[in-house]
């Protein structure tokens, strides 16, 4: 062999070496970040299965041994949170659906019809996303507790089967979450409707289709993927919400208390915080959003990207 080929081999090998080193560095960085993002969750998970003694004696990220393992905290947390889970579902699902319907309608009326001043109305919708809720909670509690007072006004309903007093609070939460969810959902739908061709609308109009007919026959079928995004995103948002629960439900012991509200006061005692119980509670209350997130991660990422 001549010297030249050896040289080429050599440079090729060193190049390959460098590429490999780079790949190793890249993947170790990515994996180190996985550890960083997962460790709080992982250590919470292993801690939730530990007895109080195992908590003291083992490292927080090490799974408990056989003698330190218990399901007791999960059982207790579940019994404390199950009513809250049910209440949360009871207002999260209807307000998610209502948000999606209202948002899609608003986006349609503001995007696929052309009229003067619509940009201003739309700007009010966008600004609605960014309002700090602190700016509205005092009137909100005044409105629901003093002005409307559904519990007293709908008094005739609470004797009926399946209905109870707590449903007044649930209804208030449904309306509230719907109202504050509309802006973001409208913006999501508008992003899609803007990409739809104006010619399609004109053609439908020339055929004599009313706006309602066009909406039902053309726009709604085309928005199904966006409805999925909105359902997933709004479900997580409303389920995770805390401030409105605190203001409208007020007390942790209220029969209408939501899951986040109960979790905020779980396992608090004079002798300190019962961490395994809190961790179990955190996982139980995060379970629905975790399931939705893991199953539909792509749709969730799309909803985030407004």
């Amino acid at each position, binding site marked *: 062999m001549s010297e030249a080929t050896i040289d080429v081999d050599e440079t090729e090998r060193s190049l390959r070496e460098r590429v490999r080193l780079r790949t190793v560095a890249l993947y170790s960085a990515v994996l180190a970040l996985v550890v960083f993002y997962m460790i709080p969750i992982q*250590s919470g998970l292993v801690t939730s299965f530990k007895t109080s003694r195992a908590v003291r004696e083992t490292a927080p990220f090490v799974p408990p041994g056989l003698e330190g393992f218990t399901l007791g905290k999960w059982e207790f947390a579940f019994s404390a949170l199950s009513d809250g889970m049910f209440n949360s579902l009871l207002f999260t699902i209807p307000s998610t659906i209502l948000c999606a319907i209202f948002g899609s309608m608003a986006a349609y009326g503001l995007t696929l019809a052309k009229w003067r001043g619509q940009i201003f109305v739309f700007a*009010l919708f966008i600004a609605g996303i960014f309002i*700090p809720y602190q700016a509205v909670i005092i009137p909100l509690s005044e409105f629901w507790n003093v002005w409307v007072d559904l519990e007293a006004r709908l008094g005739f309903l609470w004797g009926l089967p399946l209905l109870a007093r707590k449903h007044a609070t649930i209804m208030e939460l449904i309306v509230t979450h719907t109202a504050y969810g509309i802006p973001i959902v409208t913006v999501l739908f508008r992003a899609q409707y803007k990409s739809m061709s104006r010619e399609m609308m004109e053609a439908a109009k020339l055929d004599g289709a009313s706006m309602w007919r066009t909406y039902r026959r053309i726009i709604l079928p085309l928005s199904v993927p966006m409805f999925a995004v909105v359902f997933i995103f709004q479900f997580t948002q409303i389920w995770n919400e805390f401030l409105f629960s605190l203001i409208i439900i007020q007390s942790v012991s209220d029969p209408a208390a939501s899951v986040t509200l109960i979790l905020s006061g779980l396992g608090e005692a004079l002798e300190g915080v019962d961490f395994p119980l809190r961790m179990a509670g955190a996982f139980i209350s995060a379970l629905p959003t975790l399931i939705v997130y893991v199953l539909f991660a792509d749709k969730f990422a799309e909803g985030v990207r407004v």
Partner: protein
Amino acid sequence: MKRIFRQIVTRLRDRQDGPDEAIQTDGGVTADGVTADGTETVTRTRLRRFIDSEFVQSAPFWVPPFVLMGFFVYGAIGWNFWISLTDYSGFGAIDYTSLSLDNYWAMLNDPQIIEVTQNTFVLLVAFTLACLVVGLLLAILLDRKIRFGTGFRTIYLLPFSLSFIVTAQFWMWMYNFEVGIVNRTVGAFGLGPYSWLGDPGLVLWSVIFALVWQFSGYTMVIYLAALRAIPTDQYEAARADGAGTLKMYWRVIIPQLKPAMVSASVVLVLFALKAFDFLYAIWGWRPRRGADILATKMVREAFQRQEWAYGASIALFLFVLSLAIITPYLYQQYRQGNL
């Protein structure tokens, strides 16, 4: 003078002709228009035209959501302002008749307000910058065509899908003084232990760190979308010029991420203004000194101490702050035709 008059006449005629032409296509109305005298036709067709206009036709779609949202958002903000002018506190009815700016003067003289506002700004700036930087690193790493890219994205974004109340539980455990992982980690380097959630000089930074953990995945997603939109030939051109990876990102790619950065930081700032849930989950009504922000102070004044009117004035201050951030952003978006 004459010209102007003629213009007006032609314009009026145009106006009459327009709808007439349109109406002739559907038979019945034309006969009506012909028999009736001139003025009536004009008003009727005008009404007709108004009803047919896209404004009226689209109203059933956007007005109901707009009214619902408008009442709860803008109506409530106005109401909040009104309450802030009263002297409402404790229980009982609000007296809307005696109005004054007393609460705003009281705010100026409240030493806590200054401290709390300072904390709010430190939180806003540090949290937003850290999220922008960490998110950028994550996005660049995942943009390097690695295997299971979406899997890693899902993991990094996972904390963002959790409630503040849930993540607060995890971080209370992480920051635990005796056994927490954070103290163990710094202990391995011979430091600490620190009281992360107790030391007034540390608490705010502990909170910021935890919030960055939760939200950097969000900035990553925003950046990734922007990175994917950059045409590949720009990467190739930079490569052909002999630019290294770092240089390529610094010179070519990052400048193009500016719009993504702006919109992400607006959202992050507003998330930080809402960080109340996280602080409440850790400390309850009264956060440790050093981690008290405007949002927690407002809720405490109103819902714990029942100083409703004073709380409302702090809320308005918070609203004005966020308005100062949103308005330029929306205006810029409008100028660029992104609305």
